[in-house]
């Protein structure tokens, strides 16, 4: 139904602008229907300019900036109708340390509505978790799980897991 679509689309646009600003400290975003008369079939163009910059298109953004833009867009949609749980597989890989922290904070803000499973090599993302599982292959080719609960004051021993950062 087209009016419901337009309403949802407006909400997503606002969410996207808000989340993008969280990541970039400001900037301009827009989601533009390539064919406004046929919204349900139209393509969508993404305009995203980090604060102070003027990239002509999102192809000019850096690897990390594109990852943050994609995360902002996915969560802008997620906010409309949060799924009960969400799995993020190494989404933080191209991010520098400050951006990993912002990403981890964003996820924390959604935890009142949903559970999250983050697969990561980054210490910062691990520190944001309530529960930590290590996966190992002590026996070659066979996976095994080690539980390392992170609740409250506990600190896990991470060395045996050879984590990358």
């Amino acid at each position: 139904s087209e009016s419901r679509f337009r309403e949802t689309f407006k909400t997503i646009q606002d969410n996207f602008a808000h989340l993008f600003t969280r990541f970039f400290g400001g900037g301009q975003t827009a989601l533009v229907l390539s064919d406004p008369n046929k919204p349900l079939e139209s393509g969508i163009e993404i305009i995203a300019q980090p604060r102070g910059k003027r990239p002509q298109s999102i192809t000019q953004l850096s690897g990390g900036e594109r990852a943050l833009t994609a995360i902002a867009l996915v969560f802008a949609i997620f906010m409309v109708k949060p799924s009960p749980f969400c799995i993020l597989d190494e989404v933080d890989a191209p991010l520098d340390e400050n951006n990993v922290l912002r990403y981890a904070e964003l996820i924390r803000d959604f935890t009142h509505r949903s559970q999250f499973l983050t697969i990561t090599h980054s210490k910062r993302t691990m520190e944001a978790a309530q529960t930590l599982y290590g996966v190992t292959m002590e026996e070659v080719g066979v996976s095994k799980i080690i539980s390392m609960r992170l609740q409250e004051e506990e600190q896990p021993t991470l060395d045996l897991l050879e984590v990358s950062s």
Partner: protein
Amino acid sequence: LQLKRLEIQGFKSFADKTVLEFGPGITAIVGPNGCGKTNILDSIRWVLGEQSSKLLRCDRMENVIFNGSENRKAVGMASVSMTLVNNRGTLPVEYDEITIKRELFRSGESNYYINKTACRLKDITDLFMDTGLGSHVYSIIEQSQVDLILSNKPALRRMLFEEAA
């Protein structure tokens, strides 16, 4: 709806029975390259009814069954079971707790169960229809999807509107 427990056996690198318990908030999964972290994500996709072997990184569905290692023979069956708590009445069933299970044998024979009662694959996918869980789009996010999410192509539009509207 909350993910409570996941049991994996004979699925990809998880030759032995493996149990993960999930709490509220964020659960982080860590470990070296190739140890089995993304395989856990694959097992969740699979038990929710994924039929695309490509999305499971396999040439054929049979390849999700543990196919042996240096010290172990291949096994004959993969099984994954997921237990959820229906704490917000999200699922249209009378149960507080619901366990879905999927088995695949090398013969190609498949079994599906809801709370130990045999059912069809369709019964499982129908169950999760409105929760955002059965879909791929914003409940499973992988680093490799950034370019797809940022493209103008119809894939993004479908994601935006079918999921949230």
